[in-house]
């Protein structure tokens, strides 16, 4: 154990404690963060003084004349520290002080454990292949994903319990306050706040709600919270763009990995759209339809990632998508049929007397049908994705409720059962959106093309 080891422990502890203190100030109280920092500082100074003492005592006798004042200095410092500790214990929450005090010790233990782990054979076997290591990292992230919402939702439930005068719960620091950084003194207030906020209080925490909670009341944080789905949808767009760019950057004759997957997806989608629209039209409409599928699929799945949220669980985003399809379909109709043909289509293509007689009736029906398309598209997507998110949140809070009698910070991950269902709905809804858009375009195309398309289909 050299001095360098102590230096490493010190820097790691400082980093760890600062991060934890920020989190504590966000989720518990500023006072608890102060207690944590004070405890860690006390512990670190204590360790440093001990180090001076040991070095001074163990140095060979030649320097003993200089060692004596050092020993005295260290001992005096430790006495002062003990006095300081007594003062701190009266003014700061004791539990957090102890946590901060034990932080350097925990770092030492963890360092020793990780040293032992790195030497072991199992670790070497894991680190041998990047895929194996990635699988382990993914498993760790998944575990964290189970634990994190449980923790945060559990705080909210306990905050509500504290409002009913359960003083035992209220006195435990860090458990009582809702995730908005309120003082613990008024335990009823945070619960009322959490109920009063209709937005963001009944879903998993994501990056933006965490940032907003950390900067409660700041203008930019409010703006970020307000634009949350748009920020996330832009992020998804960025991810899709980068993936597409990487997949097609360096095309090879024999594709591998990412390029293979991307090509397979595009080919299957193209075949599918071609099967409905006919291959001549598919070339024209595929860019929009394929983009819709990939984008919506990615957005639906984004909510399953830790600390992310699906933008499609917000009606505004899905309505924007539906409106895009609506405008494009009308454009295709007017472009392909001409103004006269478009009006004729809206009148139900009257060709005989009977047709002209029902035309005034058909026009409002067709108009309503057209206007209902974006609404039905967007409401279906929104309802499915949002309902699925609600299901996950509901079962997560159920799992927390099952352990809440023990004031456990972690719940049973009941919602994990529904991840496969969420995967299924995400894929299916992206697919349904694309299929319906394709059908709407097909309905707007000039009618004689149907015959061609059917012939083409019969031909192969």
């Amino acid at each position: 154990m050299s001095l360098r080891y102590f230096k490493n422990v010190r820097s790691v502890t400082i980093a760890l404690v600062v991060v934890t203190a920020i989190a504590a100030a966000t989720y518990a109280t500023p006072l608890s963060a102060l207690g944590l920092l004070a405890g860690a500082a006390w512990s670190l100074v204590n360790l440093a003084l001990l180090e001076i003492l040991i070095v001074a005592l163990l140095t060979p006798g030649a320097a003993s004349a200089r060692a004596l004042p050092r020993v005295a200095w260290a001992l005096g410092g430790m006495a002062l520290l003990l006095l300081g500790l007594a003062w701190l214990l009266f003014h700061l929450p004791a539990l957090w002080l102890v946590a901060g005090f034990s932080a350097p010790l925990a770092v030492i233990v963890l360092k020793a454990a990780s040293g032992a782990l790195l030497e072991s054979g199992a670790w070497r076997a894991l680190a041998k292949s990047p895929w194996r290591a990635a699988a382990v990292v993914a498993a760790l992230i998944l575990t964290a994903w189970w634990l994190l919402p449980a923790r945060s939702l559990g705080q909210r439930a306990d905050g509500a319990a504290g409002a009913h005068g359960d003083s035992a719960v209220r006195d435990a620091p860090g458990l009582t306050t809702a995730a908005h950084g309120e003082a613990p003194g008024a335990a009823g207030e945070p619960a009322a706040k959490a109920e009063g906020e209709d937005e963001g209080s009944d879903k998993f925490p994501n990056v933006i709600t965490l940032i907003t909670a950390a900067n409660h009341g700041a203008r930019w944080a409010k703006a970020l919270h307000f634009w949350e789905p748009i920020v996330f949808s832009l992020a998804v767009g960025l991810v899709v763009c980068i993936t597409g760019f990487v997949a097609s950057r360096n095309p090879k004759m024999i594709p591998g990995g990412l390029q293979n997957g991307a090509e397979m997806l595009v080919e299957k989608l193209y075949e599918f759209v071609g099967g409905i629209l006919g291959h001549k039209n598919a070339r024209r409409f595929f860019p929009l339809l394929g983009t819709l599928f990939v984008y919506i699929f990615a957005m639906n799945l984004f909510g399953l990632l830790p600390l992310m949220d699906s933008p499609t669980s917000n009606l505004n985003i899905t309505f924007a998508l539906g409106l895009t399809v609506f405008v494009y379909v009308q454009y295709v109709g007017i472009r392909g049929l001409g103004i006269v043909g478009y009006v004729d289509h809206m009148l139900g293509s009257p060709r005989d007397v009977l047709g002209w007689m029902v035309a005034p009736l058909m026009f409002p029906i067709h108009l309503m049908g057209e206007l209902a398309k974006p609404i039905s598209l967007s409401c279906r997507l929104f309802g499915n994705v949002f309902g699925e998110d609600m299901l996950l949140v509901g079962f997560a809070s159920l799992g927390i409720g099952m352990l809440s009698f023990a004031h456990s910070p972690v719940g049973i991950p009941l919602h994990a059962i529904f991840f496969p269902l969420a995967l299924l709905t995400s894929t299916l809804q992206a697919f349904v959106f694309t299929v319906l858009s394709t059908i709407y375009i097909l309905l707007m195309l000039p009618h004689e093309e149907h015959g061609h398309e059917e012939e083409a289909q019969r031909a192969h």
Partner: protein
Amino acid sequence: MNFDFHAALALGLPIGIGVAAIGSGIGLGLIGQGAMQGIARQPEATGKIQINMIIMAALAEALTIYAFVVMLMLNKKIG
């Protein structure tokens, strides 16, 4: 007149969703039945039938989703 709006909403919303679910459940059952029979009689048309079945199922299911969305809109009014 002592009319409790909140209680009426709290009682009515779940019933509304249930009724909507009954309707689209019947619809989905009919669609599934038709598709399965079609596939059984003509297995080579499975792909086409499945695609159309999914579309129709989405249309039928959407009605429940509309009820769900309405519930979400009115949910906040239950005091």
